């Protein structure tokens, strides 16, 4: 079955009402005691068999974090988080390494099955080489599946390594490519960048590492499915992608989490580095558990994502479709250091019921002739609040820099809020910055027009919302675009009428 068909099937099952992925896998967990202190960090580092430099790096981050305070400038509201009441390490117990299907916990496999991860399914997890011709004819997608804190399976490693591409769990990269990791880790998001990034730096347990060597176009889309599983486990993912001169990579990140009542903290850090003429396209579809209709439960998603366009003519493009989480605090940004470098941010953020999203981007123009584009579509329904917060900063040396920003908000119902907070700082008079913003409501006459043509009210909302988001959805790789469209409709179910 072609990948696209699989994805369509997956998507069809997504459209069943409610949050489908509210199940919990029962497997033995190796759980660190609750709380955060130097001993816990040493334990994490020890479990990961990390070199001394990384432990020092973590401890430095922890020391910085202790002096920092939670940021409160975002338009989000939540009860105080007790950082001592969380487990900072959880690993599925396993015998050795899951080198074959027999060695992978069957519960885990069933979890993936329920998730409908478009891996080359269970066979791939077993490490079956997709060598036959039919297989090779498809557009391959490599998946690094993260189950709680430890990556259990990485596919297509061999095909990728032939191209010289490294795609592996970051904990492995620390062991196998220490120099590369040490060179780039924390170079885009320093350990003390912000409260959540410092926390992540101190306690991150796993994530992905991608390295695309000079001149290589990565032969497949790279994809990671994150999944939060253990009760009361904070998840601290760390992703590092380095694209050398003239290389290209497209990276997909999809997230689902089982349903539960208590809130779960998620504070990931993603760092991207693009050298001369390199391009990184990073796409996210985030549909973590948003909490129930009354606002109970759901994920707190406090993420730091930043890309550095270090080289001339380098390009980093963020595309995100955010439909999940109780609270989203996320600003995928670009530091445009290289001359004529390009940063892009395409975002759809949907909030329903009592969800809160404060999301946007930062485009920091340092290089001459650097350009950035921001297209943000916020959709608010129910009692939710949706804020776009964006910074465009043009440094004095960034002659001829350009930015175009478009922020559109769509309101469904009259209990929700949409807010646009753009910050523009231009220190170079040759720079050009444009900002457009609109706020609209789904009009009664639009709904009636669709219904008169035979569409149900919910299909009509889905159609109008997808139309509203089109400029962003078209930036997604095709498999993701289909999934994202369905997710938008599912997220807004029950928001009208």
């Amino acid at each position, binding site marked *: 079955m072609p990948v696209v068909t699989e994805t369509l099937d997956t998507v069809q099952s997504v459209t069943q009402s409610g949050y489908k992925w509210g199940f919990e896998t029962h497997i033995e967990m190796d759980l660190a005691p609750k709380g955060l202190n130097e001993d816990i960090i040493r334990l994490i580092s020890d479990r990961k068999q990390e070199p001394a430099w990384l432990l020092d790096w973590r401890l430095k981050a922890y020391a910085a974090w202790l002096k920092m305070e939670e940021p409160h400038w975002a338009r989000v509201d939540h009860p105080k988080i007790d950082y001592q009441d969380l487990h900072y390490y959880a690993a599925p117990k396993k015998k050795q390494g899951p080198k074959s299907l027999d060695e992978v916990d069957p519960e885990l496999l069933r979890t993936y099955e329920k998730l409908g991860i478009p891996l080359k399914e269970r066979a791939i997890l077993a490490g079956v080489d997709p060598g036959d011709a039919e297989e090779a004819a498809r557009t391959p997608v490599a998946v690094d599946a993260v189950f709680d804190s430890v990556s259990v399976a990485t596919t297509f490693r061999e095909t990728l390594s032939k191209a010289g591409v490294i795609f592996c769990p970051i904990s492995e990269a620390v062991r196998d490519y220490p120099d590369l990791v040490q060179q780039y880790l924390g170079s885009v998001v320093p350990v003390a960048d912000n409260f959540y990034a410092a926390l992540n730096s101190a306690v991150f347990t796993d994530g992905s590492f991608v390295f695309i060597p000079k001149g290589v176009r990565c032969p497949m889309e790279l994809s990671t499915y994150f999944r939060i599983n253990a009760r009361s486990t904070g998840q601290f993912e760390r992703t590092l992608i380095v694209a050398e001169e003239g290389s290209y990579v497209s990276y997909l990140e999809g997230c689902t989490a089982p349903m539960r009542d208590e809130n779960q903290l998620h504070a990931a850090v993603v760092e991207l580095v693009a050298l001369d003429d390199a391009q990184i396209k990073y796409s996210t579809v985030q549909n973590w558990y948003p909490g129930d209709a009354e606002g109970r439960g759901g994920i707190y998603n406090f993420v730091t994502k930043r890309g550095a366009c270090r080289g001339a003519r380098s390009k980093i493009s963020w595309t995100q479709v955010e439909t999940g989480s109780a609270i989203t605090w996320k600003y995928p940004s670009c530091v445009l250091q290289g001359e004529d470098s390009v940063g892009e941010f395409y975002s759809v953020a949907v909030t329903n019921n009592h969800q809160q999203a404060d999301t946007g981007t930062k485009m920091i123009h340092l290089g001459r002739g650097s350009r950035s584009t921001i297209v943000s579509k916020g959709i608010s329904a129910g009692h939710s609040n949706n804020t776009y917060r964006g910074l465009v900063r043009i440094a004095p040396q960034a002659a001829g820099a350009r930015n175009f920003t478009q922020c559109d908000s769509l309101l469904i119902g009259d209990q929700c809020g949409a807010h646009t907070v753009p910050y523009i700082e231009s220190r170079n008079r040759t720079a050009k910055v444009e900002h457009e913003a609109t706020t609209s409501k789904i*009009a*009664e*006459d*639009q709904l*009636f*027009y*669709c*219904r*008169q*043509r*035979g*569409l*149900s*009210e919910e*299909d009509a909302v889905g*159609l*109008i919302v*997808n*139309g*509203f*988001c*089109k*400029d962003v959805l078209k930036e997604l790789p095709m498999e993701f675009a289909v999934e994202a469209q369905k997710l938008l409709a599912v997220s807004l179910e029950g928001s009208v009428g």
Partner: protein
Amino acid sequence: MLEIRGLAASINDKPILKGIDLTVPEGEIHAIMGPNGSGKSTLAYVLSGREEFDVTGGSASFNGVDLLAMEPEERAAAGVFLAFQAPIELPGVNNANFLRTALNAIRRARGESELDAVQFLKLARSEAKRLAMPEDMLKRNVNVGFSGGEKKRNEVLQMAILRPRLAILDETDSGLDIDALKIVADGVNALRAPDFSALVITHHQRLLDHLVPDRVHVLAHGRIIRSGGPDLARELEKSGYAQVVAEAA
């Protein structure tokens, strides 16, 4: 057959329709004429199920089923189509995609199989051609950036594709030049069949030269004050509504 008995409706407690009696047998086209503010568009909206209007009395049934008890989309599935006086824009929604979604929703409701993208496009292209409409209209976003005439033609294209059993055209001829008017009339004429009927709301005799109605009704102050054959439209064109309204008062 459309049967309307004593239909009364109001908006924001203001009565607009004050007892409409009207029967449109299968296969017939009836014209509704009348001065501005007489309730013509309200009648179109009430029959198609717009929620802002409150039905305060009377009944309306189509082929024996109670229209007023149905949701707008159920009426569409039953074959009711309203060509809007001011067609609505749907930014970012591809016209072809919109039409296919609508057609398949209706087909599903009727227990018919859905059309895939290829089958649909074939149908849509041939209908567009028949209506002398540029094919790129299908690729554009629904009514966005369309001229007034294009919007009206797009309504007729939708009608041709959705194949309604009862078409209600709310001043579809307004703002059209002679050529476009003829295209609209041809579009409706092409649908003429023993199981197709239409209610054509218009101000002008002009449309009725091309789209000859079986009956003409004059609506004023929320009531039908006079009915007649095609000649009535010509009489109105000559003498205006004032006299007819005065006679009825």
